[in-house]
């Protein structure tokens, strides 16, 4: 092959030559040049930090003095003495396992409603997506806090309707606080809704026709056609949203700040506090690694069990 192909006369290259060693080498170089941004970043911002944090998790480190090796002490403290560790795990699981299914359910119901061929569904689709556009912003978190505050809009509505006589401290009540966070997550059902809508479009109409001929009711069509056909998408969403749910941080910090009585102390918030308030970088690294392991296990479980409830059209799923 020519050194400078752009200047070479335009003549077809024989196949044999193209697969030659020199060609492969040049392709190797080009390939690595193109992926080099990611490769360098992957090493610098993912692999090295991960290994570094694994090492730190066996040390005591407060940034000011150098890390001191303590062996398994951080992990021992975590599992034996630190009551906030199980508490934050419990809270995070509670949050993820309520917020994610509810959000997906809501998204699914709306997708089913909006997948009907009716006038205005396009507009509705846009409208229902708007809250998710604002989703993660601080403005929304701040707004949510006021909405559920003692003098907030929710209490104001309930009092106007005569349901309650005095404002309820939704954010300060040990049993209600976490539900305000769940409600916020459910409110942002826009993205899964759009994904479900795209999935519903993929389902072949002939399946419904066949069902209609067999005299199936709408409910039967939903249970026996729509849901099984949609299950790979539901599964994928469940996985992604679950990991997102576990990583919840900003809203917990702004809306409830972990309170009351650590009832909304999300795991990431706890890592943040350990690392950047107490400056226990070693302990915080250990906490982060536990989270990584949990996410890994969870992902594996979801993948392994998926064959039981995910239907692939080719039939290999069952």
């Amino acid at each position, binding site marked *: 092959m020519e050194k400078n192909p752009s200047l070479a*006369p*335009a003549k077809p290259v024989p196949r044999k030559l193209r697969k030659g060693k020199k060609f492969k080498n040049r392709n190797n170089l080009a*390939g690595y040049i193109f992926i080099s941004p*990611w490769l360098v970043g992957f090493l610098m911002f993912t692999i090295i930090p991960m290994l570094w944090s694994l090492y730190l998790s066996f040390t005591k480190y407060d940034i000011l003095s150098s890390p001191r090796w303590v062996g398994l002490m951080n992990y021992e403290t975590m599992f034996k003495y630190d009551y906030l560790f199980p508490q934050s795990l419990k809270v995070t699981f509670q949050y993820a396992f309520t917020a994610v299914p509810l959000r997906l359910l809501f998204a699914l119901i709306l997708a089913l409603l909006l997948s009907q061929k009716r006038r205005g569904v396009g507009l509705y689709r846009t409208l*229902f997506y708007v809250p998710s*556009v*604002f989703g993660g912003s*601080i403005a*929304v978190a701040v707004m949510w806090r006021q909405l559920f505050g003692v003098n907030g*809009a929710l209490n104001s509505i309930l009092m106007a309707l005569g349901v309650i006589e005095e404002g309820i401290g939704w954010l300060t009540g040990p049993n209600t606080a976490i539900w305000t966070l769940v409600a916020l997550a459910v409110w942002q059902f826009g993205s899964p809704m759009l994904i479900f809508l795209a999935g519903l479009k993929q389902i072949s109409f002939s399946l419904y026709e066949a069902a209609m001929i067999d005299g199936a009711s709408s409910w039967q069509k939903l249970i026996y056609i729509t849901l099984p056909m949609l299950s790979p998408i539901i599964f994928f969403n469940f996985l992604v949203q679950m990991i997102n749910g576990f990583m919840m941080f900003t809203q917990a910090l702004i809306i409830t700040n972990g309170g009351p009585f650590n009832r909304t102390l999300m795991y990431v918030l706890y890592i943040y506090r350990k690392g950047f308030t107490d400056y226990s970088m070693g302990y915080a690294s250990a906490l982060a690694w536990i989270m990584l392991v949990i996410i890994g296990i969870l992902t594996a479980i979801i993948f392994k069990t998926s064959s039981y409830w995910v239907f692939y059209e080719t039939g290999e799923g069952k």
Partner: protein
Amino acid sequence: MRLTTKTRKNIGSVVYHLFVIALALFVFYPVMWLIASSFKSHSEIFTEAHSLIPSELRWENYVTGWKGFGRTTFATFFKNSFIITFASTFGQVASSALVAYGFARVNFTGKRFLFACMIMTMLIPGQVLMIPQYLLFNALGWVNSWRPLIVPSFFGVPFFIFLIMQFIRGIPYELDESAKIDGCGVYRIFFYIILPNIVPALITSTIFAFYWKWEDFLGPLLYLQSAELYPVSLALRLFSDPAAITDWGAMFAMSVASLIPVFILFVLFQKYLVEGISTTGLKG
């Protein structure tokens, strides 16, 4: 008989629309309430908490809110947000496009393994790495500057790489081949053949990158200490500073202001956004 089925259909349609509109109002209430509250006086915010119609349109909240804190106004915060977001978005999209082309079209040794690595990193949440990354940037002396928020953006984002790759795969190979016959190398093929054909994917990536950077709170919270460097997201939090009396009206006003760029982008590019979410199946 025909009439009854028709009326029945009409009734069904009315019920459907009423139900969906009621649901939409319910879902929209918080947003409308936020906007209404930004025009209310301090006392009205609490006495008429749920009402969506302020007694009069007061712009004072916007004026006092814009003044910001100390000597830093929201003009600074918005400027900071725009600089950080633009620089980072450009970096994310440009680097991701290069990497996507490398993975999608160039054959090189170790590609399969590295691609698997990249997909794996999509599943590792950034929060898990916040401690060591902070220590890294701290060691580099980058804390309290925008560098930790901008520089890593130039190293590709797996999600966008994946999204752009899907798009490149849709471009017929014949185009590459004919360019090759005309004497184009892989680099020229990228710039002249691939790049013009993946513009929609680049736009989708740009919108997402913009949103996520604009909303990013954890990054600025970790790395920025002086208020004059704060983006809007972090500045909004200053309103609830426990040391001062919170000016709710001003806080609502600036919250609304912070959502305006997001909303404008949504209106202009919602087609790309919807397509991006639908084709990649990831969160927005």
